[in-house]
């Protein structure tokens, strides 16, 4: 069609003009920045040469503005601004626009998770290898997803030896507003989940201590900074070939207060690592949910297999009660008032209520079992804080934590090919909070088969 063609031609022409205009502007900017840089260098040299100025009395300054700072609002184009230049200026972080993802070449796919995909990539200019995580942009109804914003904000703020370093955020094509946002992170060779799957034997006790110390120091840092991770699990814990552990995946993280903000979603933490209070539907929770997950990770490191592999929420609770015992008003005051607790029927006989953690891990020392038991306290109040955990005698007794430099190295899957993933539940999706209300859930028979279970026969959970 002629009309279509000419319109196309016009569009094309407009596009060319627009591109031209953009290019001119870019060049102006570049020239400007270059000029600025030179001026700054000159000023820095001048500053270095100059003696420190004597400070006048403050009263004087108030009455009579210091000469080298203007108060008028107009700034001459290209002039050196009359802003104070002080050491702080070099220390303070800066901001600038996101760079384009084209500055990186994708090397290989590492992993696809529920919130995005991760690649190993190389920055073209520097040759440096990084990890690129593409954020999933679903639920665009409310604009930029708040979960993605929180992931960026919390990770940006968490500068710590044992938290993965977020270098910058880069974007894809600007035409499509939300299409593509990527986190550029330091690359680590392993995650603990994949690594364990390929190991013939579990980590040694001395290695487990080192891993746990690093993990809990990261969690301590987050909690001190009012951040809950809310998705601690082995696949979100990275490790490099120097035995250094770094916490990753802040896709569920958020700030919290004390007391906790009301109405937080209980739909957090991957099922196998989810604390009982979450499963019972609490909406006011805090640091102990992360500490529960740390306990699950501890158990997993000991046996090389996830500790509490429930098939669904009900089954997860059953597995928890089976391992840790049945909660009572004594051990966990008020748990019966939690939303999902009403539909539970629990056994009344007290002798069936104890924890079997000690007997399940016969090779663990007394101190180790005590730590694991306290981390897996049903009552969140009874779980130790990350700081308390770090001070635990378990880490002081023999065998001592192994120096990270002495860790064995492992072949990296992330470094070469796409990983195969052994099935495990993924991080919870946003949406309906789970309710345990399949009628009544009967846990009263939970320990009927304990003897069998301990000899390896498993047991059935009764659903009434």
């Amino acid at each position: 069609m002629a009309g279509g063609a000419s319109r196309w031609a016009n569009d094309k022409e407009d596009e060319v003009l627009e591109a031209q205009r953009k290019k001119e502007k870019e060049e102006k900017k570049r020239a400007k920045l270059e000029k600025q840089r030179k001026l700054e260098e000159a000023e820095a040299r001048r500053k270095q040469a100059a003696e420190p100025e004597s400070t006048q009395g403050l009263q004087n300054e108030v009455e009579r503005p210091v000469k080298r700072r203007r108060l008028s609002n107009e700034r001459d184009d290209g002039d050196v601004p009359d802003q104070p230049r002080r050491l702080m200026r070099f220390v303070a972080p800066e901001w600038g626009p996101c760079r384009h993802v084209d500055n990186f070449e994708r090397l290989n796919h590492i992993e696809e998770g529920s919130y995005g995909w991760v690649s190993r990539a190389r920055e073209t200019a520097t040759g440096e290898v990084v990890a690129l995580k593409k954020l999933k942009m679903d639920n665009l109804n409310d604009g930029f997803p708040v979960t993605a914003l929180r992931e960026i904000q919390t990770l940006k703020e968490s500068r710590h030896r044992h938290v993965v370093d977020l270098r910058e955020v880069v974007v894809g094509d600007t035409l499509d507003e939300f299409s593509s946002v990527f986190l550029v992170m330091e690359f680590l060779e392993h995650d603990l989940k994949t690594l364990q799957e390929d190991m013939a034997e579990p980590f040694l006790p001395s290695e487990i201590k080192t891993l746990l110390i690093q993990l809990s120091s990261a969690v301590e840092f987050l909690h001190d900074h009012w951040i809950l991770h809310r998705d601690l699990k082995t696949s979100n814990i990275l490790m490099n070939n120097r035995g250094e552990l770094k916490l990753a995946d802040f896709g569920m993280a958020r700030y919290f207060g004390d007391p906790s903000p009301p109405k937080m979603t209980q739909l957090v933490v991957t099922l196998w690592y989810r604390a009982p209070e979450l499963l019972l539907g609490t909406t006011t929770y805090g640091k102990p949910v992360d500490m529960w997950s740390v306990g699950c990770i501890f158990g997993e490191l000991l046996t090389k297999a996830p500790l509490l592999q429930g098939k669904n929420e009900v089954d997860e609770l059953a597995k928890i009660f089976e391992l840790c015992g049945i909660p009572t008003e004594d051990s966990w005051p008020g748990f019966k008032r939690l939303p999902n607790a009403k539909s539970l029927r629990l056994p009344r006989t007290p002798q069936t209520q104890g924890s079997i953690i000690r007997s399940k891990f016969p090779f663990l020392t007394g101190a180790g079992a005590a730590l694991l038991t306290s981390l897996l306290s049903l009552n969140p109040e009874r779980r130790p804080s990350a700081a308390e955990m770090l001070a635990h005698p378990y880490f002081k007794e023999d065998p001592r934590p192994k120096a990270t430099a002495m860790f064995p190295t492992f072949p990296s899957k992330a470094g070469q090919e796409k990983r195969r993933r052994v099935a495990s539940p993924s991080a919870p999706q946003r949406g309906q909070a789970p309710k345990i209300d399949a009628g009544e859930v009967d846990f009263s028979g939970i320990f009927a088969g304990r003897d069998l279970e301990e000899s390896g026969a498993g047991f059935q959970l009764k659903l009434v």
Partner: protein
Amino acid sequence: MAPTPNQNSQLVNPLATTAQLSSSGSQLDGVPADLEDSVRFAGASLTQAAGMLLRLPQEIIAQAVVLFTRFWVGPEGGSLIEYGTEIVSASSLYLIAKLSPYPKSPRQILAAYAYLSSLPTSLLTSSLFSSKTPENPDAYYLSEGTYLTQRAALMKTESHILRVLGFNTHVALPYTLCINYLQTLDVFQHPQASALAKRAFAHLNTALLSPQLLYLTHQPPALATAAIYLAAREVGVQLPDNEWWEVFDTDREELGFLVVGLLSMESFVKGEEERWGEGKGRGKVPMTVEAVEAEVERRRILEGGG
């Protein structure tokens, strides 16, 4: 209740670099610096007014104002020839509220802005700070078509803000510090204590609108210290006669600079009101791309003719 943020994030903001302070996207597009100051001031006041209308806590509003201000700074910042001030203000508020415990829906935000832009003046400082209870903003009528168009613009601008700021959405504020410092200075016994705290907070609020971009060039401890210093002189509370400000990481030079900056706000605001106030001078501050272009053109013709 509000979380008590960690020490670092409470004390440290990203600051504008010298290069960012020396030029801006708007100036590269030919917008005169004084016009830019006027529009940015009107936009910051608009953000403040909209936040109050939406009953957001001042800490949330202040973060939005800082975000709004950061957006326009530097050669790579947003240009008034490309982005409308109103929509950038609305998106900043929407974005910050979304991250806070008080999220607002796009409809609530847009209704508030529709109401405010229907007012005869674009300098909302005096009218709204004097706390006339405004009408219910939710009730302000927005046709469905307008709503959908503006909603799309709100989202689009939100993502542009994030890109231009490199996702630096974190803003540290001086309010809590200010209270802590007053406690440390042990002034709460003083009969004028509450007047002092009020006055200091008022200075911190006004500084948000400063054409000197005080929140982009100075860290929260220095802002809090200067506000206290000035407020104490104004309400006549005697502070220690040693160099107490050094305890709060502020040296004499920076304190002097900030106090002068705070003091200059009064005459700056007066000047803006002379030029753009209701029934005065030229009418409303240009707050859309078209209005800014028209104003730039008008000035060019005036200058060319004269």
